[in-house]
C-alpha cells in the first residue's frame, strides 16, 4: 500500500536542490497536457490490446544527435544494491530500469506500451489478467553473451523472490500482497519457515498458493484479489519483474541478493560493464535486446558528483550532457542577457510527486507525551482549516522551488496530474479543479482569497476561543537539522504565514530533527504539519485517495502521519466517514472507467472542500540540457521514467525556444 513514497523532507530537500528557477521566457507553455488520449487497452477493462511498437521513432542516426550521453547523480544517491527485486529506492531503480525490462512500459505520454509482453488482456473486469510474452527475449550477462530465454516462469521466480521473507526481507511486498490472490498467505507461510527452508524454496509452493500461473512458456496469468482494472499498470513496477532461475541457482540465494553489475543478468536495453562506486558507471547497449527499433545511446555514463555546483561546472566544461540548475546558477544566467547559456534555460517537466501540507489531527506536545490540545482542537475546526486553505498565497514558497515561474509549481489537487484520463481525453485533475473551482494561472495564485480567509479566521477565532484555544496557535513544523535548503524554505514559509494571516492567528514554529523524521517526529507525534510528496505506484486515483481514508489499516497517511483515527470532533469524523465511503464506492466501480474516475474526482473535491489536507506544490526545475524532455518516457507511476530509450537529443543543447516548440507539439500530439 505504501509504495514508492517521496520523502519530501528527506529526499527532495536534503539531497536535491529544490530551488531552481530561471528562464527569461514567461511564454513557455505549461508542460501539463490537457488532452492525453485514453490509449486503448490501458484503461478500459475487457479490451484486448494489440501490440504496437514501443514508440514510432525508428533509430535514425541524425547527424546532430548526442551518441554518448553523460548523466550525473549526486554522491549520496549511489546505488546500494543491484538486485532490482530488492531495491525500493529511486537511486537504484533509475539505473536498473535500463538493465531489466518488465512486462509493460510507458511512452512519453504515460500510456502503457508493450514491454516483454507483446499483448495483454483481461476478460472479467480486472480479476484475471493474461500477458503474452514476445519471442526472442534473452537474458544476457554483462558482456552481452546469451544466457537463457526469458520465459513466463521467470516471472514466477521473480514473484517468489519478492514474497519470500527469507530472500527479500519483505521488500516490495506491499503491492503484490494487496493485489494478487494468495500473495499475503504465501508471504506469511515463508515467514514461518526457518531461514534454511525458506531460502531453499522453489516455485512449487508458490504455484499452489498464489494467483500466478505460467500457462506455457509464453503465457502468464495473474489472478487478483478483486476486480482491479488498473492491475496492468503495476507491471511497470519492479515488484513484478522477472528473475532468472538459473542465475539464482548459479549465485546461490545470498549471491543473488548481493548480485553485482558483473554477475547479474540483463534483459533491458543496456548492460553495465563499468561500475566504480561513488565515481562513475557506464552502460552500453545490450546487443541482444529484443527491441531492435528502439533508439539507444552508444554509451550512457553516470558521473557521481559532489554537489549541484560541481555538476554545473562540469556542464560548462562540456563534461555533462545536462544539468539541473542550482539557485545561484539559475539566477546568474537569468539576470545576464549576455550569458552564454541565457538562451538555453529550459524548464524540466514536473516530477511525479504531488506535495501536500498534511495536518496532524492528534499531535503531542513538543517536550512531553501529552496531547497538544490547543493545536488538536484548532485543527479539527473546519473554519480554522479553511482559513489556512484560502488564506495562504503560496507564491513565495513556490519561488523556492522555481524562482522564475513559481506558479508552474502550484499544486491544487491531492492526486498528481496526468495520472489518468477520462475517455474524452480530459485529464483527471482538471476535473477535480473544475469541481473545486480553481483555474490555474501563471499570474496569480487562484486559491488565495483574502476575504474568505479573513471571514474564516474570524469565525475560527470565535468558535475556538469558546473552547479555550489560545492564539496564536503554534504550528510545529520539523525540518532536517542538516539541510540549509529546508531551513531557508521554512523561513520563507513562516514569513508567508505571518504576512497572509497575521501573527495573531497561527505561528509557524520551525524545529529540527537530528536524523530520522520517523523516529524523532512521526512516531512521537511531534509535528503539527508535514509537507510531504506522494508519487503513484500504479495508475489509479485509489493509490492517492486510499492513503487518506478513515478507519482503514492500509491508509498510509491516516495511520502513519496524521492519526486520522484519533479524531475526537464528531463533525469531522462524519466528514471523514463520508469521504471514506465516497472513495470506496469509486473503488467498486470497475466496469466503467469514466464513472470510476468521476466518483474519485467527487471524493477528492469533497476532501479539499473540507480542507482535510492542503495541496501545496510540485517540482518543476530549470536545466540546461541536450535532450528533449518531451521525447522521454513520462510515467506518473512505476519505474520506467528514467529509461534512456528513444531520446531526441542535440549536440548543441536546446534553447528556450526549442522547448516552447516541443511543449506545443507535445500537447498537439496528445490526442493522437
Amino acid at each position: 500500500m505504501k509504495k514508492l513514497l517521496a520523502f519530501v523532507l528527506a529526499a527532495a530537500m536534503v539531497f536535491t536542490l529544490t530551488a531552481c528557477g530561471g528562464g527569461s521566457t514567461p511564454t513557455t507553455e505549461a508542460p501539463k497536457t490537457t488532452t492525453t488520449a485514453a490509449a486503448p487497452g490501458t484503461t478500459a477493462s475487457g479490451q484486448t490490446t494489440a501490440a504496437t511498437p514501443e514508440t514510432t521513432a525508428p533509430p535514425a542516426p541524425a547527424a546532430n544527435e548526442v551518441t554518448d550521453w553523460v548523466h550525473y547523480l549526486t554522491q549520496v544517491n549511489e546505488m546500494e544494491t543491484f538486485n532490482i527485486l530488492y531495491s525500493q529506492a529511486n537511486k537504484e531503480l533509475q539505473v536498473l530500469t535500463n538493465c531489466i525490462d518488465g512486462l509493460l512500459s510507458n511512452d512519453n505520454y504515460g500510456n502503457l506500451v508493450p514491454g516483454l509482453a507483446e499483448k495483454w488482456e483481461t476478460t472479467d473486469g480486472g480479476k484475471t489478467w493474461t500477458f503474452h510474452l514476445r519471442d526472442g527475449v534473452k537474458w544476457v550477462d554483462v558482456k552481452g553473451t546469451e544466457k537463457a530465454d526469458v520465459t513466463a516462469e521467470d516471472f514466477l521466480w521473480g514473484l517468489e523472490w519478492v514474497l519470500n521473507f527469507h530472500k527479500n526481507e519483505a521488500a516490495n511486498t506491499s503491492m503484490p500482497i494487496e493485489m494478487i490472490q494468495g500473495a499475503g498467505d504465501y508471504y506469511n507461510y515463508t515467514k514461518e519457515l526457518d531461514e534454511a527452508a525458506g531460502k531453499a524454496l522453489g516455485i512449487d509452493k508458490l504455484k499452489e498458493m498464489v494467483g500466478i500461473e505460467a500457462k506455457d512458456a509464453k503465457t502468464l496469468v495473474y489472478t487478483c484479489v478483486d476486480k482491479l482494472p488498473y492491475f496492468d499498470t503495476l507491471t511497470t513496477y519492479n515488484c513484478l519483474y522477472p528473475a532468472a532461475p538459473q542465475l539464482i541457482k548459479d549465485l546461490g540465494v545470498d549471491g543473488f541478493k548481493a548480485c553485482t553489475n558483473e554477475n547479474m543478468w540483463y534483459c533491458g536495453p543496456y548492460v553495465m560493464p563499468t561500475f566504480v562506486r561513488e565515481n562513475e558507471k557506464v552502460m552500453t547497449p545490450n546487443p541482444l535486446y529484443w527491441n531492435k527499433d528502439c533508439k539507444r545511446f552508444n554509451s550512457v555514463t553516470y558521473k557521481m558528483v559532489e554537489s549541484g555546483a560541481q555538476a554545473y561546472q562540469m556542464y560548462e566544461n562540456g563534461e555533462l550532457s545536462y544539468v539541473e540548475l542550482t539557485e545561484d546558477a539559475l539566477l546568474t544566467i537569468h539576470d545576464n542577457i549576455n550569458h552564454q547559456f541565457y538562451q538555453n534555460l529550459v524548464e524540466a517537466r514536473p516530477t511525479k510527486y504531488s506535495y501536500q501540507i498534511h495536518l496532524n489531527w492528534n499531535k503531542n506536545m513538543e517536550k512531553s507525551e501529552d496531547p497538544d490540545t490547543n493545536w488538536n482542537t484548532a485543527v479539527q475546526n473546519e473554519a480554522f482549516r479553511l482559513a489556512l486553505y484560502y488564506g495562504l498565497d503560496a507564491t513565495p514558497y513556490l519561488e523556492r522551488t522555481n524562482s522564475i515561474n513559481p506558479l508552474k509549481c502550484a499544486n491544487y489537487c491531492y492526486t498528481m496530474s496526468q495520472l489518468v484520463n477520462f475517455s474524452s481525453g480530459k485529464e483527471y485533475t482538471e476535473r477535480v479543479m473544475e469541481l473545486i473551482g480553481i483555474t490555474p494561472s501563471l499570474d496569480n495564485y487562484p486559491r488565495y482569497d483574502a476575504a474568505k480567509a479573513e471571514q474564516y479566521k474570524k469565525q475560527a477565532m470565535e468558535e475556538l476561543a469558546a473552547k479555550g484555544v489560545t492564539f496564536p496557535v503554534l504550528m510545529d513544523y520539523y525540518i532536517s537539522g542538516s539541510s540549509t535548503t529546508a531551513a531557508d524554505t521554512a523561513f520563507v514559509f513562516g514569513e508567508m504565514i505571518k504576512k497572509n494571516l497575521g501573527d495573531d492567528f497561527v505561528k509557524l514554529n520551525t524545529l529540527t530533527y537530528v536524523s530520522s523524521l520517523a523516529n524523532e517526529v512521526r512516531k512521537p507525534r511531534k509535528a503539527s504539519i508535514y509537507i510531504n510528496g506522494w508519487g503513484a505506484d500504479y495508475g489509479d486515483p485509489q493509490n492517492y485517495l486510499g492513503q487518506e481514508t478513515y478507519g482503514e489499516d492500509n491508509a498510509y497517511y491516516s495511520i502513519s502521519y496524521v492519526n486520522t483515527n484519533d479524531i475526537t470532533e464528531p463533525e469531522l469524523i462524519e466528514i471523514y466517514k463520508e469521504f471514506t465511503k465516497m472513495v470506496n464506492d469509486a473503488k467498486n466501480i470497475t466496469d466503467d472507467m469514466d464513472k470510476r474516475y468521476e466518483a474519485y474526482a467527487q471524493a477528492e473535491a469533497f476532501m479539499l472542500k473540507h480542507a482535510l489536507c492542503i495541496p501545496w506544490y510540485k517540482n518543476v526545475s530549470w536545466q540546461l540540457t541536450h535532450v528533449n524532455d518531451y521525447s522521454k518516457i513520462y510515467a506518473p507511476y512505476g519505474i520506467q521514467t528514467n529509461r534512456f530509450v528513444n531520446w531526441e537529443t542535440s549536440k548543441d543543447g536546446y534553447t528556450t525556444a526549442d522547448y516552447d516548440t516541443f511543449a506545443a507539439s507535445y500537447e498537439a500530439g496528445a490526442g493522437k
Partner: protein
Amino acid sequence: MKKNKKMLAGEETPVVNDISAEGLAAVTGQSEAELFSFVEYHPEEAERIGYSEYSYWKSVWKNFLKKKSAVIMLVVFLAVFIFSFIAISPLCTKYRHYTELESNKKARFTTPNKDYWFGADNIGRDYWYQVWYATQHSVMLAAIVGVGEVVVGVIMGLLWGYVRKLDRIFTEIYNIIYSVPTIIYMTLIALMIGKTFMIMCVSLIIFNWIYTAKNIRNLVFMYRDREYNLASRCLGTKLGTILLKNILPYMISVIILRMALAIPQTIGMETTLAYLGLLDVQEPALGLLLRNSREQFANYPHILIFPAVIVSLITVTFYLAGNAFSDAADPRNHV
C-alpha cells in the same frame, strides 16, 4: 655568529690569564689600594635579600608587546570582535534578533551596497547581520571549547603526570581517542544525542582535552622529580599544593598556547561538521555560512569572502598571538 666565533677563538684580544690583584694592577695601571677597600660588616645587612622590581605578569606583558605583528593582530581581532556587537546593535541594523531577519525576493544574492553592507543571501536576507551574528556565535563556541578543554586538560594532565597509578588508564584513554578519527565520535553523538550548540561544545571538549592533558603530563614528568619538589614532598606538602604552586606555573606558557590554538581549531572543526551536516542549521555559525557559500561563491563571491576573511583573521590572530604570548609567558625568557 661569525663574529662571536672569532672573539672566542681569541686571536686579536690580549689574553688575560692572571686575575690576581697584581695582574689586574698591571693591566689597569692602578695601585691595589686604589682598587679595593674593606667593607664594614653589619649583621642586619648580611640577612638582607637581593630584591628586584620583577613582576611576572608585567614581564609577560612587556615581552608580549615586543612582538609587533602579534600585538597588531590581537588589536585588530579585538576590534573586530567588539565591532561584531556594535554591528548587530541598533546602531547598524534594524534587526533585533536573528529570527527577525526578512527575506526579499528582489535582493537575492545582492552584492554589497548601501542597504546591504555585506550583500544578501540566497533568499535576500541581510548578510551583514548574519555574518556578525555568526562571528559572535562561533567565537563564543570556540572560547567555551578552548577554555573547557584547557581546564579539564590541565587538571587531568596534572593527575596523569603525578599519580602513577592513573598512568595506565590515562594512556589507554589517550590511545582510544587518538587512534579513532574524532569525526566518528562526533557523528555518533550528533546522530544519537543532537546537534545543538551545547552538545557540540561538550563533545568537542570531551575529545580534545586529552591532547592538552598529554602535553601537561609530559611537562609534569620533567618537573616532578626536581630537587625542590622532592624537598617539598619530604617536608609534607600536600599533593594539591605541589601541583598548584610548584608545577603549574611552569606550564602557563603551554596552557596559553593550547588555549589560543584551540580557538581556530574549533572553528575549523565547525566548518567540517557543517559540511557533514552535523551542525544544527537553526543556529548560525561561521562554519555553516562557509559551507553554504561553497556552492554559491563561483557566481556570488561575496557570500564566501566575508565569512572567510573573518575566519582567517581569527585563525591568524590566535596563531600569532598565542605563540607570542606563550613565549612571553615563559619565565626563562624574562631577563
